[in-house]
């Protein structure tokens, strides 16, 4: 499934509906949405500036490379044989995701995919689909945002959510990984 198709289908269907229900709102909603895109980019730039700064320190000190060596068996099983620099980025992405530092995980994933891609490649490779699914199922040791919201509303036991979340996200992550592996084998 391609993003171009999803985007086109959502735009055509939504605008068609709105022409019947509220034609005057189409432009306003679109411009507000574009503005929230800019707003989000500003928020994200702050998050990425901080985390990419921290990650660069971890790279320059050799910590990331050490982590990547430790994680190599797992990475090889998930993504197949990859170049050294890609390995480092994948290790960064996975470990950042696990501790809930999405601001460090996303830039690493974007760089990893750029480095894995051939110049004229149009279709995502198995390793890229794997990275995508791993990030989407977000296996997390601590759901910090959820706990934060529960605490804000005076939960008597916000930590209750940790184990079931870990259990469920582990199962869905494993399932996602197995499906990607199965489809990859069929394609190869």
């Amino acid at each position: 499934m391609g993003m171009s198709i999803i985007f086109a289908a959502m735009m055509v269907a939504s605008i068609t509906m709105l022409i019947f229900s509220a034609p005057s709102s189409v432009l306003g909603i679109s411009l507000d949405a574009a503005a929230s895109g800019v707003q989000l980019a500003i928020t994200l730039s702050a998050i990425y500036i901080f985390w990419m700064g921290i990650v660069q320190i971890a790279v320059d000190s050799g910590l990331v490379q050490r982590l990547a060596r430790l994680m190599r068996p797992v990475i090889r099983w998930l993504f197949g044989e990859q170049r050294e620099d890609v390995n480092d980025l994948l290790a960064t992405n996975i470990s950042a995701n696990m501790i809930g530092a999405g601001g460090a995980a996303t830039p690493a994933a974007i760089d990893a995919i750029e480095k894995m891609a051939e110049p004229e490649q149009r279709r995502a490779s198995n390793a890229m689909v794997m990275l995508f699914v791993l990030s989407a199922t977000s296996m997390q040791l601590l759901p910090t945002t959820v706990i934060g919201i529960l605490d804000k509303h005076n939960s008597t036991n916000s930590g209750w959510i940790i184990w079931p979340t870990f259990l469920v996200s582990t199962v869905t992550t494993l399932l996602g990984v197995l499906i990607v592996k199965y489809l990859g084998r069929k394609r190869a």
Partner: protein
Amino acid sequence: MSVYIIPVFILGIFVYAIWHGVNTYDSFVEGARSAIKLIVGILPFLAAILVAVQLFAASGLLDLLSLLARPIFDLVGIPHELTPFIMIKPFSGGGSVALFEQIVIEHGPDSYITRVAGIVAGSSETIFYISAVYFSKTKIKNLGAAIPIALLCTFLAAVLGALVVRWMM
């Protein structure tokens, strides 16, 4: 416990780097500089996906989709109070946080509904955001089975969450 993880992690990186003679100031600035390039690269993709998602929500199609999904959700034991939340989760990070908070207010922070929603929130990401951003530096437009697999996993998180919470509470 959980509040210590990130600060301890960051402190650990600094201590390790200083120990290995890294100029942390220069490194930080270098990393931060690549963040600016990254943001400029993903902004058009962010804008495109947000326009599509917000038009989709405003047109009533998202509600329609929720209505259509409800019988399926009933069938697999997902409480129907969660349908709008689960439907918006793949599209909008901010939207799903707002809906989650509404669920907490409406049903209480320690209720069954809230806990199932919390598990779904904690075990899936904003899929359409990832798909817009992850491939932004390449020409790749065809993501293969990535999106359907990710959506299936989100759906499964809700089914499993409903089961696990019922079993544990």
